[in-house]
């Protein structure tokens, strides 16, 4: 018997004992349907009893032993709940990124106004500088919501821009932490 088989048997024995322990509980929502429990947002939602009410109550089970036989209905419900969670997270991320886009457009328009001599440099600087912190914050919040939703590829794609914001705004963070928020405006 190879080392791998030995450890697999040990794992199976431990899993069987935990399954019998779980079967003693009346309503246990631990997902043991496909072997070991996986660390995911869905598992966390089930563990924390997060429930979005538009899908009604979660289907009742006598024990987790039922799930090992047929996980269909409960798994479908859990998938629906997790997908709604993703929907909420991505919507918030979309709003945050949309605000970042708005700030970029606004700054370009302000620069255009400045170069067309519609505003003086003081007003243009004040218009631009009062939005920089909000833009960086919105972008960071969008990345955080994306991470909460589980889309880590998007977070990695946004990492260079986050780093650019971080290194480019040492003065902004200093004045943010030392002075008040309004002191950024010249």
């Amino acid at each position, binding site marked *: 018997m190879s080392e791998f088989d030995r450890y697999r048997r040990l794992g199976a024995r431990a899993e069987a004992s935990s399954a019998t322990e779980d079967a003693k509980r009346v309503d246990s929502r631990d997902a043991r349907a496909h072997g070991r429990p996986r660390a995911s947002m869905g598992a966390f939602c089930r563990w924390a009893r997060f429930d979005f009410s538009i*899908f009604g109550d979660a289907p009742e089970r006598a024990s987790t032993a039922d799930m090992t036989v047929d996980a269909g209905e409960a798994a479908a*419900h859990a998938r*629906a709940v997790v997908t709604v969670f993703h929907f909420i997270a991505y919507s918030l991320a979309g709003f945050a990124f949309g605000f970042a886009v708005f700030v*970029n457009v606004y700054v370009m328009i302000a620069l255009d106004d*400045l*170069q067309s001599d519609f505003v003086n440099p003081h007003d243009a600087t004040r218009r631009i500088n009062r939005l920089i912190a909000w833009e960086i914050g919105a972008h960071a919040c969008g990345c955080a919501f994306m991470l909460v939703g589980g889309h880590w590829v*998007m977070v990695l794609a946004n990492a260079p821009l986050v780093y650019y914001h971080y290194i480019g705004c040492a003065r902004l963070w200093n004045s943010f932490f030392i002075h008040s928020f309004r002191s950024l405006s010249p």
Partner: protein
Amino acid sequence: MLMDVTEIFNRADAERQTRSRKLAFLGFVEVITAYKITYAAVHALMTTAGREALAKVLREAAHTPTYHMF
């Protein structure tokens, strides 16, 4: 980035170029986010529970007086 009042005329063109690139990237990000939102909504409504919830919502919507106004 933060603009300086005395340097804003010198920095304007470079800042505009930077903003254009950021805007293109963020537009791409927005498109992907919109796709993910749609994907999540569709897959939430394609499950059994989602179909029942959508049926309930549409049934209640069909019973409201505003549905028969138009």
